[in-house]
Each structure stands twice: as structure tokens, then as C-alpha cells.
């Protein structure tokens, strides 16, 4: 069991003007799975390389259990990788691949055989020791890669978008398998991904990276429902932001008029947001209603995605799939329920 601490990590590359990581801070608890979310090129993979020792930070420290690992050679750090590709050694069979790290550490042939068999059971592919890696499917190869990494009981597991190249059903089952095995072995894990669904499904906490640092970190549910800032809110799918002046339960916006808000304490200029699935569409007027016309509806099975025109502006709402699909140009009332309006600044 290992805790992982980053203190004020800075890392620049000669070809980029701004540092990839800029005063990056993060604490990962022992056995926790933290995902790092963010658009590509934001330094997620760089961070993993720093932990593994493939690259060095310009400043700051990385600690395993409170002890700096910067002076530890990469092959002594016990931080293992799982990439988008399995990178199984093509000249070794599955068993030999999994045993690679054990052999390096000097385990006897007998011990290696036992541990390899155990790992194959754990990943749900018993008895395939003798198969060459190229006979396995992409998902199976990733499972074997995971087994190869975890058989040496590493301190830290680094997942660098490991499910990207897989078909959806394989991806989902592999996500579940990785999560279960990670929990069972209690290995501190960092997952780098740009897939919000994946991060929410797998993480204990997810961290959103912006401008070389963690913009927000919290449990997936909290980050999704109440994102603390505009960038985070946008990332988790919030489309509507209302800028205005709040006072005693009312938000006055030049663009959207007067809206009721629950937060009585909020005073002054503020930005409020609402998730598209919390917006209600109905015929009758009520509190926080805005008049508009339907532009189009897309049926998604689990929900209906609507675009509604309010004058010049267009607003998106996701309503339950059981509703009728409305024709275009139908006049409707858009309700922004006050219990779902939250401040993002």
C-alpha cells in the first residue's frame, strides 16, 4: 500500500512556450484510483512519465509513502504502466510475458509458474500460458498486459488510456475487470483518460486538469452534479451558463431576465449553471419559465436531446425518453428549476 504525493511539479519542453505542468499538486491515497481528465496535450501522459522516471520534473517532488523517488532509478520505482497498446513482447509467449518481471526479480521457475497461473485466473484467462500474444484479441492482450504489470505487486499502477483502441463492449468489461482487480489488490492507481464516462465509472476521485494543474478534484458524483468552476462544468457537459447579479434569492440577468435561485446567501455578480437534463420542457408557464420554440429533437433511447430557440439564443435540454418527440417550431416553455441552478464561481 502506497500513497502518492506530488508537490509543486513543474515541467516544460523546449518547444513549448508554456510549461506542460505548472505547480502541479496532488495527493493520492493508498489503494485509491484517481483519474486525470482533460483535453489532449494537457500533460496527463507527461505526469505518468515523471512518476515512472522516464522523464524528470524541472522542479517539485514526487513521493511514494512520503519518500522522494526522484533519485530512484526507473527500474527500482515499482511503478508499472498500462498503455493503449498492450506491448506484450512478441518473442515470448503469454506465460513468459507475465513472468518477465518475476524473472528480473529472481523468482525461481516454480514460483514463477505458480504466480503466472494465479494472475491468469485473476484476469479470467486461465490456462493460456503457452499461447503467443498475437493469437489473442485486443482485450485479451490488455488483460495479459495488466497481469504482467501486477504480478510483481507494484507500488503504483499507471493507466495511460488503456481502453482507447477497444470496441465498446470489450472496453466496458475490461474497465470493470481492471477496477475489480485494482480494488482486490489495493494498488494505488492513476488513470489518464479523456473519456468522462470512463473516469466516472472507474475512479474513487477524478481530477480535471487545466493549464498544467488540477482545476478540480472530487468524487465523480459531486464533480458531475456540482462542478466548482465554469471550465469543470463545461467539461462535465454543462451547456448553459447564466451571468447576472444575485440578491436575496433572485438572479437578475441582462440576457435571461429574472430567475429565482435557491441560494439566498449569494450576493453580487455571479455565474449560475444548470445541467441539460435538469431543464424541463412543458406547455404551461410556471416559475423560472422562458418562452421558446423547438428547433429539433434527437431521440437517443435513454433521453431526448432538444434544441430550443429563445429569440436569437439556442439552448439544449435533455428530457426523459418517455416524452413525446415534439415537432419543430412548436412553442414551449423552458423551465430552469431553481433547485438545479447552481453557482459556478
Amino acid at each position, binding site marked *: 500500500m502506497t500513497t502518492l504525493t506530488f508537490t509543486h511539479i513543474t515541467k516544460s519542453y523546449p518547444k513549448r512556450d508554456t510549461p506542460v505542468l505548472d505547480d502541479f499538486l496532488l495527493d493520492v491515497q493508498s489503494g485509491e484510483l484517481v483519474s486525470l481528465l482533460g483535453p489532449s496535450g494537457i500533460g496527463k501522459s507527461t505526469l505518468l512519465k515523471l512518476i515512472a522516471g*522516464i522523464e524528470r520534473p524541472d522542479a517539485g517532488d514526487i513521493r511514494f509513502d512520503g519518500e522522494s523517488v526522484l533519485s530512484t532509478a*526507473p527500474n527500482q520505482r515499482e511503478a508499472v*504502466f498500462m*498503455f493503449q497498446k498492450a506491448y506484450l513482447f512478441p518473442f515470448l509467449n503469454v506465460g513468459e510475458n507475465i513472468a*518477465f518481471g518475476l524473472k528480473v526479480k529472481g523468482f525461481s521457475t516454480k514460483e514463477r509458474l505458480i504466480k503466472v497461473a494465479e494472475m491468469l485466473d485473476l484476469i479470467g484467462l486461465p490456462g493460456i500460458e503457452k499461447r503467443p500474444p*498475437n493469437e489473442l484479441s485486443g482485450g485479451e492482450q490488455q488483460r495479459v498486459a495488466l497481469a504482467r504489470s501486477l504480478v*510483481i505487486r507494484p507500488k503504483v499502477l499507471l493507466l495511460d488510456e488503456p481502453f482507447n483502441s477497444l470496441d465498446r463492449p470489450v472496453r466496458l468489461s475490461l474497465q470493470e475487470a481492471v477496477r475489480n482487480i485494482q480494488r482486490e489488490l489495493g494498488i494505488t492507481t492513476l488513470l489518464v483518460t479523456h473519456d468522462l464516462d470512463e473516469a466516472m465509472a472507474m475512479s474513487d476521485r477524478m481530477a480535471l486538469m487545466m493549464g498544467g494543474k488540477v482545476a478540480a478534484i472530487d468524487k465523480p458524483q459531486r464533480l458531475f452534479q456540482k462542478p466548482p468552476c465554469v471550465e469543470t462544468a463545461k467539461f462535465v457537459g454543462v451547456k448553459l451558463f447564466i451571468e447576472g447579479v444575485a440578491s436575496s434569492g433572485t438572479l437578475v440577468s441582462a440576457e435571461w431576465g429574472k430567475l429565482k435561485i435557491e441560494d439566498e446567501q449569494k450576493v453580487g455578480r455571479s455565474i449560475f449553471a444548470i445541467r441539460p437534463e435538469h431543464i424541463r420542457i412543458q406547455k404551461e408557464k410556471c416559475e423560472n419559465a422562458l418562452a421558446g420554440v423547438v428547433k429539433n429533437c434527437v431521440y437517443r433511447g435513454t433521453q431526448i436531446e432538444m434544441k430550443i430557440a429563445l429569440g436569437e439564443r439556442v439552448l439544449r435540454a435533455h428530457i426523459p425518453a418517455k416524452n413525446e418527440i415534439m415537432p419543430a417550431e412548436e412553442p414551449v416553455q423552458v423551465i430552469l428549476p431553481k433547485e438545479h441552478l447552481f453557482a459556478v464561481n
Partner: protein
Amino acid sequence: MKRFLIWLALLAPLLTLGLFALSKGWFYPEPFPAQWTSQAFSRLLNDSRTLKAILDSLLLAFIVSLLSLIIGYPAAREIGLRDFPGKKYVWLAIFLPTVIPPLAIGMGLSILALQTGLAGTRLGIILAHIVPTLPYTVFTLAGVFARYDENYEYQALALGASPTRIFFTVTLRLLAPGLAVAGLFAFLISWSQYLLTLLVGGGRVLTLPVLLFSAVSGGNPTTISALSLLFLAPPVLIIAATARFLGENPNDIHERI
């Protein structure tokens, strides 16, 4: 039909050589030699000078290709995998030996060899041969590295393997086909090297090309043909043995996603 013509064009000179080598006088207007004999071959293969020349050539070419690989590997790796300022000029410097006329290089090397006492020694010839082989080795290996994925090595590193261990158990295994091709290039260039061997060796080290040239000036077509075939045999055998490696990408032997 097209195939047949291609094969004919490729093989006709060799067939002629074969006929000459096995004939005992072959004169116009006879379509085929009147008398057959394997005398030329048995004479050459019993001649200690020829045998020594074959062995010397093989040994020199082998050492030269090995050294070219060892010297070329770091350069090729850096060029193939990284970008750095001045990369263009490094390329240019590496390719210089292939664009400068061989005679100019040869004369310079000859003088240098005389000054350093390497003239007429095998070591001198080996060093001279590396000059033309190295650009091809670096070029071939850089191409291999451009398609090489270092993540295999990172995986091994994360699993606790030392850099030396990774080099021998992972990198060499993955690069074996590319190294074989690059080594083969160096071997062939060294094997067929005449000018540099003569200029630096000063005729004191006899390799097969040197013998072949002196035989050509001797003017016996049977001997020339037999010697030419002996000269051709090792490269052909080596290419046949390594043909399955040629053109194979070291990284896509496996993986089926």
C-alpha cells in the same frame, strides 16, 4: 511471360558465367562449349592463396559489418527516435562518404594509413571499409528506429529490468530483423570492396576482389568465370538465408487489435 523475361534477364549473365567456368575452351560459333570440365573450380579450391583470400574476405566483411552495427547503432537510434537541432547537418555528415568520389577518400586513407603504420594491415583495411559501410548501416537502422516503439523498453524498465538487460533481452530481439538487414548491407559493401582494400592494403592483404581483378587482367575466361562465381556465392547464400527478414517491420510482427 513477363516473369520469364525478367528471370532470363537476371540469370542470363550468371548462366554465361557458369558455362564459361565449366568449359574447356568455348569458341565462336559453337552455341555451347564443346568440352566440359570442373578443372577451374578444383584448381581454385585447391589453391591455398584463393582459399585464404576467401576466408580473409569473409572474416573482414564479418568484422566490418559487426563494427558498423556497433558504431552505427547509437547514431541511428538518436536520428530515428529524436528530433534535435542540426539533425539535417548530422545526416549530411553521415552521408558524406557516399557522395565523395571513392578515389579521393581512398588516396586520403592511403596516406593516413602510411602515416599511422596501418598500411598493409587487416586493421587498416577494416577501418577503411567502415568508411563506406557506415552510412548505409546508419541509414537502414534509422529507418528501423523510425518505426520502433520505445514503449516496449519502458514496459521492461517499469517491470524492473536494468538498461543492459533490456538491451539484450528486449531491444535486440525486437530489432533483430532490422539489424540483420543493416549488417547484410555492410557485409556486401565490404565483401565487394576493391579500391580501398588495394589502396590501404597495398596488395599485401589479398581479398577475393583483389584476386579477381588480377585474374581479369590475366585474361583466362574460365578462371575469371569460376572466380566470379565463387565471389557471388556467399552474398547469395546469405541473402537467401535472411530473405524472410527483408522488408519486415520489427514492430508489426504481432499485435492484432
